């Protein structure tokens, strides 16, 4: 089923609607906080792993399909993609998101996950980034994400 086009004008209006009075005071901690995009079509897994990553201090955005992931990548500065290989939604699988990121946002780090990998996919996955098989422990996810970010940006 088609995904409606992203209404960027609406997003801009929602942003503009917040006046300076609504802005929180500047914090002393100016260290960059990594922004992660979790691309997962199973909502219960997505909310669980996203919550775990937020609990570790990351800013975590969520995409339920490849189309949503591309829309976010085109708009928001993302440091790392955590991608499920098998996406049943619109716009292709996880590898299609990875190829898009490599072409248009080559600096974005990639981490893959899946319950299974099709024969022949391993070399392309390995060329993009680490692979974390499902089911995974959140502690392992945090470890792999931190290692993949490589100290460029921190969780807090």
């Amino acid at each position, binding site marked *: *089923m*088609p*995904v*409606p086009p*992203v*209404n*960027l004008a*609406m*997003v801009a*209006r*929602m*942003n503009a*609607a*917040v006046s300076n009075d*609504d*802005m*929180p005071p500047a914090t002393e901690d100016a260290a960059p*906080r990594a*922004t992660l995009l979790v691309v997962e*079509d*199973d*909502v*219960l*897994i*997505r*909310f*669980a*792993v*996203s*919550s*775990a990553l*937020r*609990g570790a201090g990351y*800013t975590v*955005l*969520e*995409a*339920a*399909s490849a189309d*949503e992931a591309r*829309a*976010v*990548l*085109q*708009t*928001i*500065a*993302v440091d790392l993609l955590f991608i*499920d290989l*098998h996406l*049943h*939604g*619109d716009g292709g699988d996880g590898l299609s998101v990875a190829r898009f990121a490599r072409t248009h*946002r080559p600096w974005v780090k990639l981490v893959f996950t*899946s*319950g299974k990998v099709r024969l022949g996919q391993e070399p392309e996955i390995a060329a993009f980034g680490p692979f974390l098989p*499902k*089911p*995974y422990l*959140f502690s392992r996810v945090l470890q792999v994400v931190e290692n993949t970010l490589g100290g460029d940006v921190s969780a807090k």
Partner: protein
Amino acid sequence: MSSTVLPLLPSSEAHTILVVDDEVLVRLVIAEYLRACGYTVHEAANADEAIAVVDSSDVVIDLVLADVQMPSGSLDGFGLARWVRKHHPEVKVILTSGAARSAEIAGDLCEHGPLLAKPYEPSAALDRIKQLLATVGRPLRALPGACSVLGSIQLQA
């Protein structure tokens, strides 16, 4: 999709809001805004995902903030609101819409009056959420007086 056993999430004293919108960037903006306001926020891309989350034993949702127009799922926002009212009547619902819709329908489905019209100001959504959650009996974590949209994320250059 995979069936993966996941551990229970840690409980939180903050009220938990489920934002349901099939426009990912709209969902992202309001979800980040509400997180900055101190709420625990989960996201659903359509009514089917929303039902899975509300029905999940892993999380207690206090309020559903849902778009009316969601063609990618089996139900639109009105259908989702009816489902919530039937199966989880304790969960509050706020509907949002970019189209002119009957306030009477929304009035039947939502507490405290008609739906928020898109584009809505995030602060207006926050006021409505605070109003509704004031009637929820669970303890509420102290909220900051101000919060920002996209406070911790940057737009792509």
